[in-house]
């Protein structure tokens, strides 16, 4: 009996050792480490293949280090399976808190719940998980409001009639739909503004280039393209440039990435929504610090306002925020 009871323990230990070894060898796991402090904080980010998320992750890590923690970034590479393995690793390794940018609003709930059950508090950044009782708090961009403002500027600059395309982000991410719905809450009120194509490019620049190329083949006369993030806006712009249509088609992004802010100043991109990744990451790290020092009663969701960046006010913005 005693021997039987020890088997699950042995399996669990073996699993923990294996996952630790794998995370050390894989190269896609912990990508960076900082100085030791009074505990360890994991920064789990959806992807490091997008500069905006690099800023988010590195700011969260740097703020945690500043607050006295050892901090490690885990890159999920937009893969829920990798994200799940990261959570197994960090729970087994005894991390004290997680600053989390999820890959899937619903699919990631199980990971956060596992961490919670293991006594590891999770603080979501930028991307929402659709549960109210697992993360300690969620610091999120007000995507809907930001895209309402972007939609109003879209109508102002493109006009009340014309054809446009929309390039969506990751279908399973609520940010994709909060942005799209905010934009359409305005643009759909103008029936002569016709959306001739709507396609996902998974928030990915290279994919957006491909998608834009195929949209242009079928719809050569579009006046504008609304992209669910700045990486896709840059990909769409590249496709338009290659097709000789960069001056004819207005490109709208969302994020406030540095390259897009510079492109607005250069007259290449028309507008974006500034999301303030540094502000969200710092707030998440500060919340984790407060929690680990005994504070409770955090608001579940905290919305960070998004600001419209256009050629009229672009000089006020840079370095992923306001200058």
């Amino acid at each position, binding site marked *: 009996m005693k021997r039987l009871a020890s088997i699950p323990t042995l399996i669990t230990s073996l699993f923990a050792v294996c996952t630790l070894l794998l995370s050390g060898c894989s190269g896609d796991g912990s990508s960076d480490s900082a100085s030791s402090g009074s505990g360890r904080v994991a920064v789990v980010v959806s992807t490091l293949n997008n500069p905006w998320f690099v800023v988010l992750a590195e700011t969260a890590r740097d703020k945690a280090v500043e607050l006295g923690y050892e901090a490690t970034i885990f890159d999920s590479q937009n893969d829920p399976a990798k994200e799940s393995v990261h959570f197994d690793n960090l729970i087994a390794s005894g991390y004290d808190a997680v600053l989390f940018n999820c890959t899937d609003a619903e699919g990631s709930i199980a990971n956060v719940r596992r961490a919670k059950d293991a006594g590891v508090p999770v603080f979501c950044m930028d991307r929402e998980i659709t549960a109210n009782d697992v993360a300690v708090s969620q610091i999120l961009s007000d995507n809907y409001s930001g895209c309402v403002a972007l939609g*109003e500027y879209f109508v102002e600059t493109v006009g009340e009639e014309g054809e446009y395309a929309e390039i969506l982000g990751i279908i399973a991410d*609520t940010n994709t739909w909060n942005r799209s*719905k905010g934009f359409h809450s305005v643009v759909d*009120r103008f029936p002569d503004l016709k959306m001739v194509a709507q396609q996902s490019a998974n928030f990915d620049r290279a994919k957006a280039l491909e998608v834009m190329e195929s949209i242009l083949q079928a719809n050569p006369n579009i006046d504008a393209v609304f992209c669910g993030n700045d990486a896709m806006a840059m990909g769409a712009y590249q496709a338009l440039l290659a097709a000789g249509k960069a001056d004819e088609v207005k490109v709208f992004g969302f994020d406030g990435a540095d390259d897009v802010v510079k492109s607005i100043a250069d007259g290449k991109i028309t507008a974006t929504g500034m999301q303030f990744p540094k502000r969200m990451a710092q707030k998440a790290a500060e919340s984790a610090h407060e929690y680990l020092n005994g504070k409770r009663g955090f608001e579940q969701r905290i919305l960070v306002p998004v600001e419209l960046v256009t050629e009229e006010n672009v000089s006020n913005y840079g370095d992923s925020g306001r200058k």
Partner: protein
Amino acid sequence: MTSSAHSSALFSSPAIRWGGVALLVVVFWIVFPPFRIVSLDESGKAPAKGDESEVFDPAGFVDRFWEDRLEPNLGEAMKVEELLAALVVDPLEARKRYGLYDSRYYFAQGSGDVVEIKGRKAMLEVEGRIISLLIASPVFGNTVRDGTGLLSVNDFSGLEAFNAVSAVLNTKVETEVMPSLQESVKVGATVSFVGCAKAPETLGEGALLEFVPLQVEVSR
């Protein structure tokens, strides 16, 4: 031949035996289907599980909110004269002092004389200062949802529900508050209103604040 011997002979036929097995499998599949086909919504998600009562109804929520919480609180909106006096001195200080929802909106009431109609907006003069009042659709954004300070994102299951409420509130203003305004609000009329406005960080030219109305009365 007895009936038992007859049925024995019947079931000894391989075709009938396999047919019976196949029938049982079909019945089993119908009772315990190995998968089921559901239609996905526009965001690629399966519909919510559980009974209909668990599905959030933004229109029903807004009707209840309007009647039970908003209308009884309209009298609590601050005086627009007091707000404007603070605003012209220091917009940032006014935001801190009177702003709602993270200091981003104002909830105010007052009256003014219509001095100009500019597109969908009536320009009102209030103690020598100009504000605007939206008198025709469409209503965009979250000014109505967030401007009263009565609703919080944490009262909802998530951002999707919270944003849906915003869209329905805007429609309610368009359909229940605004319909007669374009005809009744003319230059020279006096307009009493309760409404919400975005809180500016700086003051530009033109109207000091742009109100979306929640309640309006027009007199000559």
